[in-house]
């Protein structure tokens, strides 16, 4: 199908889903006529019509709430929130209703909706267009939280999210929307929603990350190999909730060292959950403390300070070297 960017892969997955299931309805601000603020829905209005690709008023709370109602009736709404910083009015609906419909009805109703939002920093945007608050959603039982790191993964994970019977928060790392192109087959094949992906094998240290930070993480792995002869195993978490803790644990049991990388603020970030799981289940395998490389506990700064805020490959390299000092 040719080489696609991540945002083109998202659009291709949405088109595929609309094509294969008449219950799929897209809604969000500017997704129709404008094709979405990042063009993730470009061309879909013309192809599928205004009933299925629906521009909404600027009202995130109702976008999510109406989606829950549609999903309760068996439709498969995919709503777009323009930026993650605008998702908080919708949090009430996701937490209070979407996540709980199955439990409250003992499975008689479910909430097969997807809430998509571009997230993360690194594009010189203001703070609320740059944040990375995935841990808020990962804290909520009943929600799935999925973050792709490449065009191929975006396509397969988004199809899986739309077909899943439970609500999925699908966060798209906008910094890498157009960073790389790769071959993406429009074959309708979904990726699993409960599996980490091991991006490269190594025996000295396990690097765990997700989304755009995998760029820096893979760069760091290359540098460590070239400069220190340290071979890192790199794991893309892909699905934060439910977490495939077994894959991470198995890797750490082999390497004995773990560095977790995320661009979200440090305290209560999802890295803390992974570190806690390792402390609970793999402590005896650890040769060094688990280290987190994260953004500081500050507000995402404006462009001139942003590079000091976002973790860099050098930070990851330094963290790994620290863990290697333990015998």
């Amino acid at each position, binding site marked *: 199908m040719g080489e696609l960017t991540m945002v083109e892969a998202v659009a291709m997955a949405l088109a595929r889903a609309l094509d294969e299931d008449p219950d799929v*309805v897209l809604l969000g601000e500017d997704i129709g006529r404008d094709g979405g603020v990042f063009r993730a829905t470009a061309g879909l209005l013309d192809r599928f019509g205004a*009933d299925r690709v*629906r521009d*909404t*008023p600027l*009202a995130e*709370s*109702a976008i*999510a*709430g*109406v*989606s*829950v*109602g*549609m*999903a*309760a*009736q*068996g*439709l498969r*709404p995919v709503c777009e929130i323009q930026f993650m910083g605008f998702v908080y009015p919708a949090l*009430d*609906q996701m937490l*209070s*209703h979407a996540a*709980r419909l*199955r*439990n*409250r*009805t*003992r*499975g*008689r*109703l*479910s909430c097969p909706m997807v809430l998509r939002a571009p997230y993360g920093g690194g594009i010189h945007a203001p703070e609320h267009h740059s944040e990375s608050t995935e841990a808020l959603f990962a804290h909520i*039982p*009943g929600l*799935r939280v999925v973050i792709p790191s490449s065009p191929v993964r975006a396509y397969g994970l988004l199809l899986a999210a739309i077909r*899943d*019977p*439970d609500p999925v928060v699908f966060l798209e790392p906008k910094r890498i929307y157009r960073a790389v192109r790769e071959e993406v087959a429009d074959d309708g094949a979904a990726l699993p929603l409960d599996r980490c992906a091991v991006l490269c094998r190594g025996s000295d240290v396990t690097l765990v990350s997700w989304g755009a930070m995998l760029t820096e993480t893979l760069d760091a792995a290359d540098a460590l190999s070239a400069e220190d002869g340290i071979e890192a195993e790199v794991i893309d978490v892909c699905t934060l909730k*439910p977490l495939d803790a077994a894959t991470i644990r198995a890797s750490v049991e082999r390497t004995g060292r773990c560095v977790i990388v995320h661009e979200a603020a440090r305290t209560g970030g999802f890295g803390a959950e992974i570190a806690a799981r390792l402390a609970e289940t793999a402590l005896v395998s650890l040769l060094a403390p688990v280290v987190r490389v994260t953004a500081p506990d500050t507000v995402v700064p404006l462009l001139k300070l942003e590079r000091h805020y976002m973790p860099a490959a050098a930070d990851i390299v330094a963290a790994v070297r620290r863990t290697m000092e333990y015998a």
Partner: protein
Amino acid sequence: MATTTRRSSGRAKKPAASKDELLQYYRDMLLIRRFEEKAGQLYGMGLIGGFCHLYIGQEAVVVGLEATAKEGDQRITTYRDHGHMIACGMDPKGVMAELTGREGGYSRGKGGSMHMFSKEKHFYGGHGIVGANVPLGAGIAFANKYRGNDNVCFTYFGDGAANQGQVYETYNMAELWDLPVIFVIENNQYAMGTSVKRSTKSKTLYERGVAYGIEGEQVDGMDVLAVKAAGEKAVKHCRDGNGPYILEVMTYRYRGHSMSDPAKYRTREEVQKMRDERDPINQVRDLLLKGKHATEDELKEIDKDIKGVVNDAAQFAQDSPEPAVEELWTDIYAEAG
């Protein structure tokens, strides 16, 4: 689009109703009241958890509106929801057993008073977050329109919820997309302990719809026939594809907001006056007796039947098994495979 709003003249001119209709409303309202009285007793005995908000006094609202519904129409409401469930035909046993947190309950002991559902009766809950059920109602109506059926979704909320922002996001979307949703504001005049007068300077709540182009009206919610007449109009408006409609139903709850309510916000006299002069069940009872549709003895017989139904429900709710501890872990996500 021309938008009209008006206050219903329900009390000035009573719509006519047949003997059978009146008897049906009498039975349905009395069942809700006796059920709620029993729920109050069980709560007092410590058998009910998950809070409990009684509907006593407001029975004419749901009974009048259910009389206008047809098969496939949906209903969704907030936490004062037992009346809605019984009025749409859900089994009192299953409702009461949910209050006691038992396996025989509609959510098999995991939803409680505020969170019950029935796919068969198209009852979409029971929701505890005030006003947050309103966009869900519009979403349900969206699905009706998308699928091309002519069903409507009765979306109930209270005067307290009417001050939540989500309601107005939903009004705008529902009218923009002509969704078949009836917004039913059950104005019982108190949001917990805060009266409407102390929470808004709006003279009415239904007139807020004017800003969104939504038609609506205010109706006497203590008069089941007036509610039904207004409901028929609203239902026709929606079924005919004209988009949403707002009914502000003026009602009154006799009991506290929940089971622990200090009731410092109104006088005993105020409540007693409503009970004496406006009670929805007594109004129908009077019509039945004065119209010679029923004798005192026949009504007593109905009372006795209903007491039996409610007692059976209470017994069932106490005998039904408790959920197994394993149930703590179920129904968070779909089972794999």
